């Protein structure tokens, strides 16, 4: 399916937003402006953006601890995100969630999740709602290779097949769960095979290539919207940085880290669209400039913003109590 020029611009804009946002997070973390820890999505941009490209605000995603990219791909406001990550008033969750719990239900973003394997069962429930209410919408569960070893994920996949719900299990295989390689932890080696064995179609996708991800996602959407149950994508990508910002990564060689950086989805996208004469380099440059300004503004605003009101501490535990 050929994407229009506007759609291509939107895709690049989202990928570059993730890149610029995460590089800024790295910087602000080092400067002490981000409390706690930060897991960034650098290197995986094409995955989240390719998966979310054809989703509407009514389609749902459940994310992971490495959720900033998913949020941006789903259309969350970067200023609201930056405020949240810095624990400020006006953040997407009022400063109560932080990096690992950003959520924006109005965008169909059901939350980053600090429990590995937390999202897939929730996504099955969200898919059940779509089936029950006949919305024609789908629900996507993002998980990592590490998360693919969690019992909750197996249960969710099996139940999605049994209930025939429109859930898409997206496994972003970046080769590592924390400091342990997927080659060690994923028994059998193939996450896609695991999904197939539960009775759903599954594809292995090149996560460096936006177009490959987008097309595979197209097939997943078609399958789900036809009411034939869940689908799985194992998206192979590269984690440019450590598990968290500041991870010394003695368990990865310099060569490997260099090699990871050579699989960069952004230059690849640029090359493809300019060589095919779909977009001009100058148009992409203009997007980058605009985004850098937006991220700069988000960061400055967030740094200057006040913390949440202490009174909010005991608010919103319940709807009513």
């Amino acid at each position, binding site marked *: 399916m050929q994407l229009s020029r506007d759609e291509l611009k939107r895709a690049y804009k989202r990928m570059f937003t993730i890149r610029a946002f995460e590089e800024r997070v790295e910087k602000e973390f080092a400067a002490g402006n981000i*409390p*706690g*820890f930060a897991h960034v999505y650098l290197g995986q941009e094409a995955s989240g953006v390719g998966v979310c490209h054809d989703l509407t605000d009514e389609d749902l995603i459940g994310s992971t601890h490495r959720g900033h990219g998913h949020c941006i791909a789903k259309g969350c406001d970067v200023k609201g995100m930056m405020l949240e990550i810095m*624990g*400020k008033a006006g953040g997407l*969750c009022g*400063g*109560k*969630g*932080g*990096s*690992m*719990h950003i959520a924006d239900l109005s965008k169909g973003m059901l939350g980053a*999740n*600090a*429990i*590995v*394997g*937390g999202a897939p069962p929730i996504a099955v429930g969200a898919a059940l709602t779509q089936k029950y209410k006949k919305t024609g919408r789908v629900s996507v569960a993002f998980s990592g290779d*590490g*998360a693919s*070893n*969690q*019992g*909750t994920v197996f249960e969710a996949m099996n139940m999605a097949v049994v209930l025939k719900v429109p859930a898409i299990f997206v496994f972003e295989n970046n080769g*590592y*769960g*924390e*400091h*342990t*390689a*997927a*080659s*060690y*932890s*994923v*028994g059998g080696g193939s996450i896609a095979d695991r999904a197939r064995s539960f009775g759903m179609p599954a594809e292995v996708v090149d996560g460096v290539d936006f177009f490959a991800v987008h097309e595979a996602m197209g097939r997943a959407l078609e399958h789900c919207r036809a009411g034939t149950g869940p689908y799985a994508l194992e998206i192979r990508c590269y984690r440019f940085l450590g598990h968290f910002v500041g991870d010394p*990564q*003695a*368990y*990865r*060689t310099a*060569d*490997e880290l260099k090699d990871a950086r050579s699989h960069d989805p952004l230059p690849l996208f640029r090359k493809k669209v300019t060589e095919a004469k779909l977009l001009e380099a100058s148009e992409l440059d203009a997007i980058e400039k605009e985004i850098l300004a937006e991220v700069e503004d988000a960061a400055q605003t967030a740094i200057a913003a006040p*913390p*949440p009101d*202490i009174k*909010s*501490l*005991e608010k919103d*535990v319940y709807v009513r109590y």
Partner: protein
Amino acid sequence: MAKKSYRTAINDALRGEMRRNPDIIVLGEDVAGGQGATGDVGVVGSVFGVLGGLYKEFGPTRVIDTPISESAIVGAAAGAALTGLRPVAEIMFVDFVGVCFDQIYNQAAKFRYMFGGKAKTPMIIRATIGAGFRAGAQHSQSMHPLFTMVPGLKVVMPSNAYDAKGLMIEALRGDDPVIYLEAKTLYDTEVEVPDEAYRVPFGEARVAREGKDITLVAFGPMVPRALAVAETLAKDGISAEVVDPRTTSPLDEDTILESVEKTGRLVLVDESPPRCSLASDVAAIVADKGFKFLKAPIKSVTCPHTPVPFAPVLEDEYMPNPRRIEAAVRAVMKFD
């Protein structure tokens, strides 16, 4: 005697006992680190560095990196313990027990009783507890009350490096399942710790500071906070005794009651939501067994009945902080 950190003290205990007893194994996520990777294996030693060097000394058969599968980690530890090993399983953040609680409370904790006293389950689950790390609602809880209420589990909350080592050795030489809760905020705190092995028995509280006017009972990471407040109050002529129960199951009721008999006043400091907490538990015990000693109502300083918030200003207010502890003590002292 050298000063050692809480982190090093735990490492010392494990290393020494692993040398002594070949049946002790360690398992969990990144307890070695680097398995299957291109670089060095064993460089992580668990995410807070507590197990540093163990992989190098004991190798992959005894320091076992697992997939991210908490149910299987804890269940495998229970099964291995039941059949002759002494596993030390790690649940990186205690919050993750949500994923594997069945293996703890329906399985490991109950084997001995259900099987009519025939089974032993000598296993330890190490997990980190506590807020103050800006880690958000799913990485900052303590949950010691949840374990304490389960018959069959022993629950250890070391508040300093000396106890951390002695309690770990006691756990490794005992035959029951132990939940060993490490306070993240204490890892770098140091006290004098002997190089040789020693045991700190379970169910024996430590009077961390003697005093005559009021008793503060604090748990785990709240002990240093209670001690700091006691110092502040001393300047105003209030003499506070601080009791550190060290284990919440078994609980040394006698030491707490003796202290309250002496002081007549009690404040509990517990990093937990207030309902069904150790604070409410100990308050109930003292109201029941020590009513006649009390000169004033018991007060508790706990967290509010909320999840742990992320924003630093909210999290600092969430935790029992020195201001709230001090206010509680002064209120109890004023009562007449």
